[in-house]
């Protein structure tokens, strides 16, 4: 009997199934060759920047020069020093700001997600979690956009001003309730419980669950805790307690994301 047979209510994907996906093979050699050939041709059509201005043109998709990929790479190395010199020498606050804010249509812009879709989804997720969102200054400082990461020039003042603007916006949108360390600590305790349960150590899982209840009675991961508690109690055969806790869970989170797990755990004792 394996671990999952002993604890059929546990997530079946802890081990082997995601391990199998991690071993997924990439393209075949023939596919790789075909892709490389297409890329070589396409990049040749894009060309290599002859100047920082041309680089900017490439980034906006407007360059028309034609240098194949391998030749482009050789030229690229020669031009890199010039480009960096240009960036460092000329980059003023205006350039830095321009690079921070200007994006081509196909550039990943995760930071832009915060304007519409993320805000909308955040609202849903906050409601679902039943907890206020945690936005501390530390989080804001630690979560710059990809555009911020990409700066290779000393644009400290521009970055600070943009970051400040972002911080003000997010801080206004989401009240600071609790430091992110709390959430990390909560997550650690819940993961201890989840891990113990996955290894069949239901008693140890309950210890961690109780620790979480004491430390974070109204924590953001209370729903996780209570669903794990039901599973642990069922695993230990403490069916009456499991029933009571499951009923409390259903009252508190009638549409909770772990409702199906709680129901599945209870189904094992019926």
């Amino acid at each position, binding site marked *: 009997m394996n671990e999952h047979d002993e604890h059929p209510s546990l997530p079946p994907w802890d081990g082997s199934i995601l391990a199998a*996906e991690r071993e*997924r093979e990439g393209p075949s050699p023939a596919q790789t060759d075909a*892709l490389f050939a297409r890329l070589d041709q396409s990049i040749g059509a*894009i060309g290599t920047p002859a100047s920082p201005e041309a680089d900017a043109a490439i980034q906006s998709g407007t360059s028309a020069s034609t240098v194949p990929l391998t030749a482009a790479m050789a030229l690229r190395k020669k031009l890199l020093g010039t480009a960096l010199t240009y960036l460092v020498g000329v980059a003023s606050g205006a350039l830095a700001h321009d690079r921070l804010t200007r994006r081509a249509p196909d550039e*990943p812009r995760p930071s832009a997600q915060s304007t519409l879709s*993320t805000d909308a989804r955040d609202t849903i997720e906050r409601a679902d979690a039943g907890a206020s969102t945690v936005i501390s200054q530390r989080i804001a400082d*630690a979560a710059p956009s990809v555009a911020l990461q990409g700066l290779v020039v000393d644009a400290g003042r521009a970055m600070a001003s943009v970051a400040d603007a972002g911080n003000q916006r997010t801080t206004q949108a989401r009240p600071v309730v609790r430091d992110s360390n709390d959430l990390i600590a909560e997550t650690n305790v819940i993961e201890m419980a989840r891990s113990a349960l996955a290894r069949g150590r239901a008693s140890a899982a309950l210890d961690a669950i109780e620790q979480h209840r004491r430390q974070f009675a109204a924590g953001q991961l209370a729903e996780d805790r209570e669903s794990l508690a039901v599973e642990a109690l069922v695993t230990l055969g403490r069916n009456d307690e499991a029933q009571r806790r499951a009923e409390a869970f259903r009252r508190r989170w009638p549409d909770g994301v772990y409702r199906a797990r709680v129901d599945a755990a209870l189904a094992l004792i019926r």
Partner: protein
Amino acid sequence: MNLDPRPEPPRSPASHPASPSDDFAHFFRAHCSYVWCSLRRLGVREADLEDQAHETFLAIYRHRASFDASRPLRPWVFGFALRIASDYRKNSWQKRRSSDDPRDEPDTKSLPDELVAQRQQQALVIEALEDIALDRRAVFVMHEIDGEPIPVVAEALAIPLNTAYSRLRLARADFDAALRRLRAKRGL
């Protein structure tokens, strides 16, 4: 062309052997497999992977100068794959899902039993991932499959840390429910 464009053997999650700013052919060779697999996990069908991988590497090439070598490379690359996959799904996903196109089934003919089992598990994971909204799925894939720490995921996706944790939690629940449903459906 002198360089062998084939991907390097499987790499450790922490290894970032090539920067796009140095040698793009080398970068391609090092990250082709990762981009390919990431696109698949983000919902690109097998038949469209080459096209979408091409678009991803083109976007990376155009924006290679924005890579900061002091930052982890793979999450940065993943951001491009996510953007391309998002556009792909907007343009074609609903149409494809509603059409009579057969699902991507693993070709397991003449494979040893253990590889058959692995391919079937991979197909199950991909199908379960399809039940997860893309923004949650991105966090799930980066953390659960790529092994990136959540703070790195949050930074790469430019989302608050608590949002990343929240999305991971929701994605886990979605994935769990999808696996249960699929296994029940298949009698596993």
